[in-house]
């Protein structure tokens, strides 16, 4: 009897140990988000905080692996895009349940798509699926088969489903019933969000332990980045997803183990000249700014290496193209960054009749070359870049006036009044597929910053870009699309409507107690593999 009790006790302890090894009961991951999420409805998520909650709680049919940049099956075990790119069929995994126990089936996918495409909902995620006039049709075949047909082809259709968190058609909890690794257990506005492990989450680790390893996630609302940094140093939070170069250096100097540079990211900082024909600029300045020689000369006068080294403390790379080298498939590797070559710049300017006199540059009509660059106030990196460019251009005799404006005033000038000469801004890029940048590159687009909303392309090279972008948008063969995008990159490199300055590195900070961290350049940089993360006391183990 005693022996049997002993064996039972050993077995119970073993089972408890196994459970602990997998799930780490009581363990909590803590990090900060800047603001309250504007919504918990995953279809309406548009801000960073809501995006974080969606990533942690939402179950998706397919997931883009942030490390390999390849799609992987999630709720769907397989999928197939039609030859014309207008429909996609999913085979769903059987016997899955939402966090509240409601069963998952193809009806839930159909319901989610119906909600996503509802014009009254104004879903930002749904906008990417709007391919043309007409209704999106869903065809459910049994519990686990669904085909979704769109009115027109959509390039990169399967990748778009990485952002679509499936909602339950039947659960009374609606968007709070989830299929992702966590569910929202508590939401204290202005203070924190508490996510708890989804008891019905489908994934197990190789040993069959329940995932995710960490029991709960606490997202503290903290706007001040300096306080966030202090909290990390005190051990109150486990990581900072995105750090500025200044904070990175500061942290690295104190404790090198905390700071992580994941390499060059997708975001670029760039400068452009106003080429709008009906802008209130004088004609001679319009002539400067529309000259490719002038733009290239300015570009070659900027020391990008110095910008990367001084402004970003070495955590940036001279930018080459509108696609970052971090975008492994789409970046045109044949291109290199424009060299820093003030003499070459002066030679280019001489072709357009510019000449130097007493250290200052004059155009062919004898006008002093002076222009202003606007950037948003409060962004120290951009202000520093503008000041460095000011000194670089002074070397070739160009006078640059740096003007910092509050953001609404800046947007007003670059989108409505066009009362500016040059602008320095950064574009955030979360999407690998260049098709998402159609609104920037088409000459008719509103975001075609240097000369938006053109009725017909103002230049031959813009017409060529239009044709190439339209061609790639209707082409389903990735190799052919790549060829078109490579050519667009070449044209942009030659014409420099945007003078790309630097691509910033992705900088993060992670507590040594957090294991299995593999920072990547795509969002969310640190917790993209949230299920695999675990916490331990031994410093840096597993990193």
């Amino acid at each position, binding site marked *: 009897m005693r022996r049997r009790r002993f064996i039972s006790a050993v077995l119970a302890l073993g089972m408890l140990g196994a459970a602990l090894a997998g799930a780490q009961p009581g363990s909590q991951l803590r990090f900060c988000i800047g603001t309250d999420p504007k919504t918990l409805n995953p279809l309406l998520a548009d801000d960073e905080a809501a995006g974080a909650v969606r990533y942690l709680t939402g179950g998706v049919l397919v997931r883009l692996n942030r490390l390999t940049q390849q799609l992987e099956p999630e709720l769907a075990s397989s999928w197939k895009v039609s030859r014309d790119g207008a429909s996609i069929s999913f085979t769903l995994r059987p016997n899955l349940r939402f966090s509240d126990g409601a069963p998952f089936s193809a009806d839930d996918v159909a319901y989610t798509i119906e909600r996503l495409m509802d014009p009254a909902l104004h879903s930002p995620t749904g906008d990417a699926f709007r391919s043309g006039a007409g209704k999106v049709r869903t065809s459910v075949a049994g519990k686990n088969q669904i085909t979704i047909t769109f009115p027109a082809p959509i390039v990169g259709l399967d990748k778009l489903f990485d952002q679509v968190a499936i909602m339950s058609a039947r659960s009374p909890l609606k968007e709070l019933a989830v299929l992702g690794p966590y569910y929202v257990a508590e939401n204290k506005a202005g203070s924190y969000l508490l996510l708890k492990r989804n008891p019905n989450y489908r994934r197990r680790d190789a040993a069959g332990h329940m995932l995710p390893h960490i029991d709960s996630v606490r997202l503290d609302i903290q706007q001040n980045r300096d306080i966030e940094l202090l909290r990390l140093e005190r051990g109150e939070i486990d990581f900072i997803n995105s750090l500025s170069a200044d904070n990175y250096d500061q942290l690295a100097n104190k404790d090198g183990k905390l700071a992580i540079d994941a390499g060059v990211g997708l975001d670029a900082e760039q400068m452009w000249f106003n080429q709008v024909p009906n802008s209130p600029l004088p004609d001679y300045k319009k002539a400067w700014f529309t000259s490719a020689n002038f733009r290239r000369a300015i570009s070659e006068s900027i020391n990008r290496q110095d910008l990367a080294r001084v402004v970003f403390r070495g955590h940036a790379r001279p930018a080459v193209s509108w696609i970052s080298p971090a975008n492994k498939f789409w970046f045109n590797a044949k291109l290199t960054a424009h060299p820093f070559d003030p003499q070459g710049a002066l030679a280019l300017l001489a072709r357009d009749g510019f000449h130097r006199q007493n250290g200052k540059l004059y155009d062919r009509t004898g006008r002093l070359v002076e222009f202003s660059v606007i950037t948003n*106030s409060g962004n120290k990196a951009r202000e520093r870049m503008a000041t460095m460019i000011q000194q670089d251009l002074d070397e070739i005799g160009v006078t640059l006036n740096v003007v910092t404006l509050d953001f609404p005033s800046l947007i007003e000038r670059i989108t409505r009044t066009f009362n*500016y000469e040059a602008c320095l801004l950064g574009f955030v890029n979360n999407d690998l597929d260049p098709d998402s940048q159609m609104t920037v590159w088409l000459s008719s687009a509103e975001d075609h910053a240097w000369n938006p909303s053109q009725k017909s392309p103002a230049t031959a090279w813009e017409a060529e870009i239009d044709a190439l972008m339209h061609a790639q948008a209707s082409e389903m063969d990735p190799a052919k699309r790549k060829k078109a995008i490579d050519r667009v990159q070449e044209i942009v490199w030659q014409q420099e409507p945007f003078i790309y300055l630097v691509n910033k590195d992705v900088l993060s900070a992670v507590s040594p107690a957090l294991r299995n961290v593999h920072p990547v350049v795509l969002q969310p940089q640190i917790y993209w593999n949230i299920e695999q993360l675990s916490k331990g006391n031994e410093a840096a183990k597993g990193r």
Partner: protein
Amino acid sequence: MKWARLASIVFLAVVTVVCLLANVVAPDSYAHQFRDVPDAAPSHQHLLGTDDLGRDRFSRLLFGTRVSLLLAPAAALLASVLAAMIGGVAGFAGGWVQGGVMAVTDLFLSMPWLFLLITVRALLPLNVSPLTSVAITFALLGCLGWATAARVVCANARTLRNSDFILLAQASGCSGFRLLIRHLIPNLMPVLYAQFWISIPVFILTEANLGILGLGVAEPLPSWGSLLRELEGFSTLSAQPWQFVPLILLILTVSCFHVATQKLEDWA
């Protein structure tokens, strides 16, 4: 307290003279970027180290102090003149003129200054040199900073209007304009002096606030505002305490202005 006033005046005089001689005293140009040594610690070459772009902090402090110390009094002068005209006329005229002007003054005082400055700054032409931008910034401060002083001047003008010498002048057939220029304004001078001196530190601090928001003096020209922006990253300050020097100088200067003008404040 006499010695404190004297010490304050001497301090202000020394700071002013040194800054006026910035071209001679400063070891480097305030704009030159020594890009190989950004954020350097104090050394023989750079007495207060270098800033994040490698610019000599000591030189920038000298030129920045000059900008703030010269232009803040100019803005204060402009504000005082406007206050004298607006407050003087309102107080002298009395009745509905005074009521109307004071209502506008109250409106001005209740306006969110900083937002107003940001808006006006955004409407200004872009292509101006840093020197022009600094002049515009302080001119704006002067144009928008008259309201407090105008109320004080108006109250004093009202008292003076009923005084015997004004009544005598009126009885002698003195015209309204002559009364204002020859009798009223000269008697308001002590109040205006006081308002002038009190306004200087206020404008210095306002420019510093604008500078902290990145909306003050344009790069590369330094001012106290742009120098104080470096204190934003408070977590780095313990490692680089020399960054506090502009702040210490600002506090000392503003304190000295207050001590030196204490008697004037009593008049006001």
